[in-house]
């Protein structure tokens, strides 16, 4: 008879658990070859939302920055746009930066932990109401979408979208093997950018960001 013994605790002799009835199955925990625990639902998860009127000819509008202590993985970036008249569209860009922005007026959003056992969020999330004075160095554009802008309160329903929002980074977009957008350190950030285009009259936005920290 042989026991499988934890090699890191030879003196303690921690033994593999075999779950009894009915399965008689071995208990295992999944790890990557880098030693990262990849158990399902194992990561501290957070969400935040915000609503705002953007600055004129906006650049970066919504931002999530990396953390000084944790690695941030962005799970979802949902963004809504509406204006006074509807019937128009605009192009949005989801960019990753490797240097932080400077200046402007940034309004931090409240990060909500999905599980109260988890620590407070360390990523900084929010939106700009005045453009950053200097944009950080861009790594590249992850996504660009052209979205319809319905009126905030349409006078009739005909032809209007069900939902004024779009997933710029769709929840459940990560399959088993591909990585989520990862922010390492406070210099890295992901932003929703408007490329300094002119606003439509009455243009307003809302957003939701979901991310994990570990």
């Amino acid at each position, binding site marked *: 008879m042989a*026991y499988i013994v934890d090699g890191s605790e030879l003196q303690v002799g921690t033994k593999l658990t075999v779950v009894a009835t009915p399965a*008689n199955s071995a208990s295992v925990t999944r790890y990557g070859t880098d030693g990262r625990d990849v158990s399902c639902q194992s990561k501290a998860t957070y969400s935040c939302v915000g609503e705002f009127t953007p600055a004129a000819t906006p650049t970066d509008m919504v931002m999530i920055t990396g953390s000084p202590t944790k690695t941030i993985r962005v799970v979802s970036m949902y963004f809504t746009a509406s204006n006074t008249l509807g019937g128009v569209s605009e192009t949005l860009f989801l960019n990753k930066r490797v240097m932080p922005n400077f200046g402007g007026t940034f309004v931090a959003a409240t990060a909500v932990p*999905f599980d109260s056992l988890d620590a407070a969020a360390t990523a900084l999330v929010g939106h700009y109401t005045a453009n950053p004075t200097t944009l950080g160095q861009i790594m590249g554009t992850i996504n660009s979408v052209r979205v319809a802008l319905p009126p905030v309160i349409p006078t009739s*329903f*005909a032809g209007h979208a*069900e939902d*004024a929002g779009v997933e710029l980074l769709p929840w459940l977009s990560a399959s088993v093997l591909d990585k989520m957008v990862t922010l390492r350190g406070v210099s890295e950030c992901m932003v929703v950018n408007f490329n300094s285009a002119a606003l439509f009259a009455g243009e307003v936005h809302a957003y939701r960001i979901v991310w994990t920290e570990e």
Partner: protein
Amino acid sequence: MAIIKSGATADLLTIDPTSKAARVTVYDTTGRDLSVQSKATYAAAGTFTPPATPGDLITISGSSSKNVRVISVFVTTTTTAAGSIQLYLAKRSTNSTGGAFVSATAVPFDSTDPAATANVGHWTTVPTEGTLVGNTSIIRIATPVAVPATFAGIVEDAGKELLPWYVHSVLDKPIVLRGVAQWLVVHFARQALVAGQTHAYRVVWTEE
């Protein structure tokens, strides 16, 4: 020959006879069983007319004995004349009090599971709201008329997932409610109702 035996009991690892594969059960590092389809799952649904300038519209509260993980929150809205409204999904750390709360019937997906311990329902008069942790989602959705005169331009579905079923990727957590003080609510931010505004909803959650 090697036999793999439990370190705690006399149980031996089973090798299935056809596949010759060993049985394994996946756990996280805290000892939580992560087998697929292993959790007691429940749903509740309701329809209602909200009170004027509502705050909380729909609530799922935590349990005194189980951890509640919310899988889906789906809300529909109709109005007399079509338009749009904004809804929020928020987490509270203390209970809302007062008001008139109507509990919905929690349906276990499997009759071998015990009765649900979470309380799900809607408000027909406005409560005094508990402490807000923050909003977890926000949507602006179209509100079609309840019975349209014609089909032209009408959406297929008057509802929207505030917390979409099967939304999670592999590693992120569902919203977890630990203890009866923790609530997840759909709220309307005390905005004025649109004429004829009515709602229906469905909440799905697990308990373990």
